[in-house]
């Protein structure tokens, strides 16, 4: 038995948008779907360079990546592993942690061609392998350029651009050996810490939190999960995945981590973060702190963030209590 203790997550199937156990709604010609199948079925080992833009600076990092028997392992200063739908993370000092239990399955994405045009763009060579180049286009602008290995369809290069054609992120194999089993095949950890989220049934959410089912630019909600006091809503437009995290309470900007950039969104302050896998924006509205993140270009992320419905309390009782508190505090000398 791989695990000493079996994982017993209280996963409840989401009504009206259930995780589909790894199934994808995307069409047969979805290149990312082809790449996913190839990554799960093709043994390989190599090294990858990640590039990402933070403001105007392009950062990069190099990682060792390998795959065999449906298990993928990326090793850098941490190690990340995908085993079927399960996701695990190893941090020095922290050991293995289960980020996403297999019991939650995989969210079913909308079809890629609902919002994008997918077109062949010739051939190229990446790390010595011939590739078929595919472009994913939206509103006339190339948003992604994928290099799929000609025989296996393994993704050897993925370049993401903003709406002005500026490179935002890139994943590129510098070196790869396809077909041979890696000399040391990745092995799954015996007993990772089980810290993953649980699915939340939509009907258990208060009416105000069932919205938004859709966000700007065609993002549809795929699932709702919770971990501690954080609610995570997952959205996709068929290409990019977004997570909208909601935390109940107020925000003191001094409590936010750094480095961050302050931006204006709908006339209010918001704070943005960049990391190798995407962008995040945090803001507060009503009695909730929102953090929206994904590998979507930054300009689109802000547009989508602006479309999040804010649920302000309109309860008469709540307002009366607040008014009484203000009154009493004014007598106490404004403490």
């Amino acid at each position, binding site marked *: 038995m791989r695990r000493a203790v079996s994982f017993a997550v209280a996963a409840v199937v989401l009504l009206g948008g259930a995780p589909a156990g790894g199934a994808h709604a995307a069409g047969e010609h979805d290149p990312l779907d082809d790449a996913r199948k190839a990554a799960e079925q093709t043994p390989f080992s190599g090294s990858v360079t990640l590039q990402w833009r933070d403001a105007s600076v392009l950062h990069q990092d190099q990682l060792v990546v390998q795959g065999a028997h449906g298990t993928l392992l990326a090793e850098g200063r941490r190690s990340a592993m995908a085993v079927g739908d399960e996701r695990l993370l190893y941090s020095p000092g922290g050991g293995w942690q289960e980020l996403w239990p297999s019991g939650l399955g995989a969210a079913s994405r909308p079809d890629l061609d609902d919002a994008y045009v997918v077109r062949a763009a010739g051939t190229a060579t990446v790390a010595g392998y011939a590739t078929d180049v595919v472009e994913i286009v939206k509103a006339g602008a190339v948003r992604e350029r994928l290099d799929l290995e000609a025989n296996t369809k393994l993704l050897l290069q993925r370049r993401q651009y903003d709406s002005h054609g500026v490179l935002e992120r890139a994943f590129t194999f510098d070196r790869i050996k396809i077909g041979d089993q890696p000399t040391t095949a990745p092995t799954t950890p015996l007993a990772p810490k089980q810290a993953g989220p649980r699915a939340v049934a939509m009907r258990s959410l208060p009416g105000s939190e069932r919205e938004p089912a859709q966000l700007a630019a065609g993002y549809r909600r795929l699932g709702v999960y919770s971990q501690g006091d954080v609610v*995570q809503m997952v959205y996709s437009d068929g290409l990019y995945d977004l997570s909208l995290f909601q935390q109940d309470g107020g925000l003191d900007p001094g409590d936010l981590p750094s480095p961050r950039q302050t931006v204006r969104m709908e006339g209010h302050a918001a704070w943005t973060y960049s990391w190798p896998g995407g962008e995040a924006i945090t803001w507060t509205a009503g009695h909730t702190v929102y953090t929206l993140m994904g590998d979507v270009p930054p300009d689109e992320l802000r547009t989508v963030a602006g479309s999040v419905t804010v649920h302000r309390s309109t309860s008469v009782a709540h307002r009366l209590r607040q008014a009484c508190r203000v009154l009493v505090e004014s007598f106490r000398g404004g403490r």
Partner: protein
Amino acid sequence: MSHLDDLLSAYVDGELTPGEEQRVRAHLDTCPECRRELQFIGEGRSLVRGLPPVDPPFGFYERLLRPQRRWARAAVGALAAGAAASVALMAGAAPHEPRVRPNVAQLVDAHTASASTSGDPLSGITPAAVPVSFRR
């Protein structure tokens, strides 16, 4: 289940059946509004319980029993005292908004994990191997 409303008071008073209690707990797990409401109720009750007993002033009952026009003044005074007590009680029950300190690095890991299950897992999971260095 929509919001709990009156069920919350019954829940605090321990008047629910075990089944109802279980459903209320499940709802509270996912409903911040009801959790806030529960907090108001709890705080309001604590406030009332914490009030010291007050003895009536000397001669209060005698004056109360004396048929005079002072009744009207006493009634107005009582109403004013009641209103002040209500305001104090409502103020005490007003929500203390919890302070949120978003752990962006942890949220990034959670997002990377969920997003990599629906797209290409290779390019999706690889960024998680680069530590996110957001610090307070």
